[in-house]
């Protein structure tokens, strides 16, 4: 080998497969963490308003792209902790995704509404797709952005009630098609195989479904009967669909305005059942082996986490990890689950098989936890 390999620092010699980042939402910082031990490796500061921040990873799992609420997009180096590139790309942003080939990082924006594609390398702007104006004349807010096979991205528009798909096969000349989806889509998800895109609707019953194999079929509606004639409960935090939970042929979705998790048959999109839970579900996530579904809740029930048995569709455990449990993340094979307890300034680490605590890590107002294996998955 050449002399350069002898010059590798200790940091560079480390692998990145067990790394991740934790958003410290109030202080504009993130922690770089490792889950083998588990441990905190470094804190990177100066990232702006990180309320509702989300993260995607580079194809090689060395870099994390952090989308801030204030519209900043930052590229973090996990091995040499620090900011490798940063761009102030919008006034108000909600998240992003990375393309199938790993070359484009796409931000979804509220203000101005639309999506923007950046080079994953140096974050220079490659293309932008403004959203159609809503009733107030301003471009609609983009929700639920997800990467699809073929350099495509699916997303929904809150005010205009559409699902759109932008194709970046020619990176600087994207082609976009939109179809009506229903009232007030609030988030979206792509199935793990990248085949189907689903958008949850706040303004009406049902879920919008788009089939990437058959775009000509437009948007279908599934679960139409759900919630009809029932008075919804108040929703103090919008549920997230992005942490999709597919276990075998069953899909688990948070209900909106009901303290239930919906169980859907993946083959025909029929409702198989509902599991009564302790509050408005926010994240509904399958343990990687699919045997259990873990659920956290909106204010004021956000001190609890419930575990659903994916086979019997019953709640098999109720945990109280701490105050304001905002997010959960499984390790790639699901031996551990990390839980952010915002109001305890702490990450709780549980053995995901026994549900026993195995460690805790100090963090300032932690929210999202993201591990690097997401780089290999659609919709994450």
């Amino acid at each position, binding site marked *: 080998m050449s002399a350069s390999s002898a010059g590798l620092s200790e940091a560079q010699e480390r692998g990145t497969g067990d790394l991740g980042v934790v958003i410290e*939402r*109030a202080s504009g910082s993130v922690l770089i963490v490792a889950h083998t031990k588990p441990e905190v490796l470094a804190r990177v500061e100066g990232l702006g*308003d*990180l*309320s*509702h921040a989300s993260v995607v990873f580079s194809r090689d799992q060395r870099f994390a792209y952090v989308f801030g*609420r*204030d519209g900043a997009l930052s590229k973090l180096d996990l091995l040499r902790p620090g900011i490798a590139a940063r761009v102030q790309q919008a006034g*108000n942003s*909600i998240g992003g995704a990375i393309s199938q080939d790993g070359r484009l990082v796409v931000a979804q924006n*509220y*203000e101005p509404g639309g999506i923007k594609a950046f080079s994953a390398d140096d974050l220079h702007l490659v293309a932008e797709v403004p959203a159609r104006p809503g009733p107030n004349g301003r471009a609609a*807010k983009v*929700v639920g952005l997800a990467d699809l096979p073929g350099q495509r991205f699916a997303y929904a528009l*809150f005010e205009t009630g559409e699902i759109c798909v932008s194709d970046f096969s020619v990176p600087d000349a994207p082609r976009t098609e939109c179809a009506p989806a229903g009232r*007030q889509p*609030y988030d979206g998800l792509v199935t793990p195989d990248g085949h189907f895109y689903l958008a949850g609707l*706040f*303004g009406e019953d049902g879920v919008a479904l788009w089939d990437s194999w058959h775009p000509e079929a437009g948007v279908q509606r599934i679960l139409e009967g759900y919630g009809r004639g029932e008075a919804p409960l*108040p*929703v*103090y*935090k*919008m549920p997230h669909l992005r942490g999709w939970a597919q276990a075998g042929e069953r899909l688990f979705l948070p209900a909106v305005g009901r303290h239930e998790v919906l169980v859907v048959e993946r083959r025909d999109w029929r409702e198989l059942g509902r599991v009564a839970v302790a509050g408005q579900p926010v994240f509904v996530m399958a343990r990687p082996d699919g045997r259990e579904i873990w659920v956290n809740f909106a*204010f*004021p029930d956000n001190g609890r986490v419930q575990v659903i048995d994916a086979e019997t569709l019953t709640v098999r455990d109720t945990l109280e990890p701490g105050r*304001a449990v905002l997010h959960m993340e499984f390790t790639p094979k699901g031996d551990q689950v990390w839980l952010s307890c*915002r*109001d*305890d*300034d702490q990450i709780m680490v549980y053995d995901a098989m026994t549900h026993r605590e195995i460690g805790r890590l100090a963090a*300032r*107002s932690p929210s999202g936890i993201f591990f690097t294996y997401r780089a290999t998955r659609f919709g994450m």
Partner: protein
Amino acid sequence: MRRRQGAFGVAWGLVFAAVVHAEPGVARQEALVRLVRQDCGACHGLSLRGGLGPALTAEALAGKDGEMLAAVITHGRPGTPMPPFAGLLSTEEITWIVERLQEGFPPLSAGSSSP
């Protein structure tokens, strides 16, 4: 009512004042700041400059009637994702939040998320 001067008397005076003005206590005020910034911030942004919900900065709320704002917090806005907080917050707490929003909402205190 006459009370002996001293720390004890001062403390009772503070309690009395709090009741008269019906303001939340200091600890509760901190909890309310955290609630607004962290939980309302899920839609309105931690900086309250807006998100899925509108901005709640003093500039954004300028000219808006305080009672109307209190009614929105109390009852929510049907047809939008804004939920009602009646039952979770008292009338006095909602009034306190509206007044703070109108003058520019206080920041999270240092170590904000700790009790």
